[in-house]
């Protein structure tokens, strides 16, 4: 193909190219519009990063919205400039233009303009970074420990909140509204990352380090989160929720967490369940106040069985809505929706009702007790334990009979 032949074809070719080019931009524009539409009209995605529900997330959102807008405008300018050039300067048989090598003044101007825009962004970014790093205005501390593949919460004694002895919980972080909560994060094995998008950005939980994250909720609500640092096999199944309660409701929650152990009624199914629990579960799972048959306190020893050294404390299991790293609901679908969809001022009461027998998600809980690793991948197969010296990295298969499972479920239901 020589030069002149090419020229003869050129017009039709260029025309067809441009026809498709314009379609391309229609497409890109269409996708952009759909993006704005979808992002704009809230789909109630529980982890939406553009719907702050607390002052820390609000700082981030106020910073990022203008940046997104400016970036969008610049993107549009570039796209329009390219479209213009493509249409305006297509080969219509014009002479080969002068071989100009650039205009330094124009170059420098076009370098300085983006630099100035970024300088303005930098100023506001700096402000936000330091605001979000503040720790001296903390009103409440919660220690958060990540472990494959669940989160443990440890509320140190803080008398002003009625916490007279440490509360240990997992899965769902319960906090009072309008209170500057400081999470102190660490990990027992690999790096995890704590993220409740409605309340703040992420902070990694790094073994050997304690790092802080501010959380504060404006109004009572349930906020979804997810571990966001890849932490091995079941990273996808390491979720969490933050529950913000009114100060009065929070006080009730604290009181319940500190309530003494109530042994199941004599000769009940639950009491038989307690025996199964003492026989099996207590090797890893602590229930505060639980006594062995001989009257001595039953102390769990997860460090002997779990590589990372801990297992969820189940003392008030039924005060939570989820289990197994917030992967499964303890509440049936209907009861769960009632709590999650409740108006802000009713969430506290509904949440504090806990899990009743009618509302229990029997199916998933029984399946979990039957064969946990089948529901959530964990290194629980004996052939996979050589590297850890026989210790598990998650709940193993326990070969419980269906009878034992029924007894256990009855017992767990008493752990209000």
């Amino acid at each position: 193909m020589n030069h002149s032949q090419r020229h003869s074809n050129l017009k039709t070719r260029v025309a067809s190219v441009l026809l498709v080019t314009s379609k391309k931009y229609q497409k890109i524009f269409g996708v952009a519009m759909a993006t704005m539409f979808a992002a704009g009209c809230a789909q109630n995605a529980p982890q939406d990063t553009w719907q702050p529900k607390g002052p820390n997330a609000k700082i981030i959102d106020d910073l990022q919205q203008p940046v997104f807008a400016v970036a969008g405008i610049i993107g549009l300018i570039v796209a329009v400039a390219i479209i213009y050039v493509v249409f305006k300067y297509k080969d219509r048989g014009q002479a080969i233009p002068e071989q100009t090598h650039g205009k330094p003044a124009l170059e420098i101007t076009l370098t300085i303009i983006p630099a100035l825009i970024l300088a303005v962004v930098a100023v506001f970014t700096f402000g936000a970074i330091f605001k979000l790093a503040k720790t001296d205005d903390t009103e409440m501390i919660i220690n958060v420990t990540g472990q494959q593949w669940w989160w443990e919460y440890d509320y140190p004694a803080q008398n002003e909140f009625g916490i007279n002895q440490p509360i240990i919980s997992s899965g769902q972080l319960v906090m009072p509204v309008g209170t500057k909560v400081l999470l102190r994060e660490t990990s027992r094995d690999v790096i995890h990352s704590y993220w409740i998008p409605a309340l703040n950005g992420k902070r990694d939980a790094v073994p050997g380090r304690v790092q802080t994250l501010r959380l504060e909720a404006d109004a009572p609500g349930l906020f979804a989160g997810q571990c966001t640092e890849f932490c091995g096999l079941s990273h996808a199944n390491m979720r969490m929720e933050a529950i913000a309660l009114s100060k009065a409701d929070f006080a009730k929650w604290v009181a319940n967490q500190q309530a003494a152990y109530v042994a199941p009624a004599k000769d009940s199914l639950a009491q038989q369940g307690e025996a199964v629990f003492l026989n099996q579960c207590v090797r890893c799972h602590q229930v505060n106040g639980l006594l062995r048959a001989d009257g001595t306190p039953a102390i769990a020893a997860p460090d002997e069985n779990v590589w990372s050294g801990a297992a969820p404390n189940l003392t008030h299991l039924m005060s939570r809505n989820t289990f197994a790293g917030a992967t499964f609901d303890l509440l049936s679908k209907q009861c769960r929706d009632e709590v999650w969809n409740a108006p802000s001022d009713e969430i506290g009461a509904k949440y504090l009702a806990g899990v009743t027998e009618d509302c229990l998600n029997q199916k998933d809980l029984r399946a979990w007790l039957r064969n946990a690793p089948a529901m959530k991948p964990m290194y629980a197969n004996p052939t996979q334990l050589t590297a850890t010296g026989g210790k598990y990295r998650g709940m193993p298969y326990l070969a419980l009979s269906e009878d034992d499972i029924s007894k256990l479920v009855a017992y767990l239901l008493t752990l209000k």
Partner: protein
Amino acid sequence: MAIIERETEVMVPVTVTPTSTYGVLKRPVSATGWRAWVFTVDHKKLGLMYGATAMFFFIVGGVEALLIRLQLAAPNGKVLNADLYNQMFTMHATTMVFLFVMPMAAGLANYFIPLQIGARDVAFPRINALGFWLLLFGGIFINLSWFLGGAADGGWFMYAPNSGPVFSPTNGIDFWAFGLQIAGIASLTGAINLIVTVLNMRAPGMTLMKMPIFTWMMTVVQFLLLFAVPVITVALFLLSFQRNFGARFFDVAAGADPLLWQHLFWIFGHPEVYILVLPAFGIVSEVLPVFSRKPLFGYPFVVFSGAAIGFVGWGVWAHHMFASGLGPVSVAVFSLTTMAIAVPTGVKIINWTLTMWGGKLYFSTAMKFSIGLIVLFTVGGLSGVTHSVAPSDTQQTDTYYIVAHFHYVLFGGAVLGFFSGFYYWWPKMFGKMLNEKLGGWNFWLMVIGMNLTFGPMHILGLQGQPRRMYQWTEARAGEGFFNLAFWNLIASIGSFVLAVGILLFLINVVITARNPTKSPLDPWNSRSLEWMTSNPPKEHNFDVIPTVHHLDEFFHRKYEEDSATHTMRQIATAEEIMAEQERNADKHIHMPSPSYWPIVLAGAVPIITFGMIFSHLIAVIGGVILLFAAFGWALEPSTAPESDFENNSSQGTALDKVGH
């Protein structure tokens, strides 16, 4: 093969094969058949082999990507289990970064840098061959793990302590670490080789500021490699010692800080990002001027912004760690540097647009890919700027928004750039032009497919879907028609559209190979020296080494400015320029000779690393082979000796320049 003797009246090169035996073995002499490839030290053959290897791994990585998208098309996907999914995304990234983009760039650099600077080969031809074989063997070594107990499963970033022997008990990460070490030697030797080549072997008159922009960008890349690869080498050694010899560099119980790995990895990893994308910038900066019939707008600005990216690229690594707890001062500093690096990147976008401004645009497939790159890379660049706002990044990091960002940068940047280069340089490399019509389909399916695949990921990420999850759940997908389930499905459909687009390229390659039509000498009316020779180039590249007077030397030999209109008029055709060259051809060209040793030496290295994992005896055997090969190499002169020549070179350009 080794020495090309020609008399002025004889137009066909006469190949003289050395007869003497030097070193441990006789030299390989085949100029045809598989031996001509396996023992070659010719930069063009090695370039093509790099390209073919990269293309193979591109398909491997692509299949891994399709499996990932199949798994994520619907909630609670069952295509892969958690273990296999984790291996899949780890290997997808590893393959695409280390075994596709880097080798493809190395291949193009190998092929075109000597041609663009008017040289007859690279500075160290045998080391060049060694680099290729190490890359190939390293790539195969990493992928062997699929068949030997499972591939690496810690993510391509391989964060400690999750990469330790307790948390990843299979040998996958051992294969990964050693395999990357092997490929790393290839990158390092390649970098040294090309830097020496560019600095010492440019044609007379080609000052650095008259050097083609692709060569410039590749030179920046080689410097980045030279300084970045040693960092990952150190990190990988720490990891291998931890896993294989009980060292405790990342063992928290022994007092280690796991953030050490992150710093090491990203001090390598961020320059690596520019290693991946600058080659594409170079290609686009070649293609746009050719098809705009104008020089690159602001050539010095593009050169210096490339170099600036190369420098500032070292000061931004911790923006990968904004959520890891660095403290506000560090975060603020790295936020600022990350914003700063957006400026030279923006300069490139502006210069490309202004290159087309006022031009005479011809929309070949290569040009379409280049224009596609400008638009799509801009999208990725702008989402990158949103990450530099650190508080905003703490919401976005480790979500699909990041996945969207870097696929716009790497697919919209690196991959579209490569495809632009394929269509542009195919006639140069193979003497035949890829089908332009099929090329149009190839382009549009890739662009549409990529936007369908990665566009929705912006939404997925901003609405809270984290990365690296083998399943996603409807409970977190939101409500309404445009919920996350919808966008996940669109992304999966898009990935198959994209795959069809790439398949069309492969079909195009086959069709072109079967089509007997030869390409014209200068099909695109090009500007730089690589087009001032035959298609494909002769083994010695140029009959006579050109003397350079201009940036875009070849163009200025074809055109001169009309003093009245300042437009350009043709004064010579490419054929005339070639004929002139042949008339003045160098009489005596001395090319480096093929050698057995690079492939033997490279082959010994994976045997050693295999032995490190399974049995130290095997490692010893590998070590013996390696020593044997090194001695053989050392005793073998790089070119056949002078005694093989009948008369001493009068214009021994190649002998003087092609080295040791």
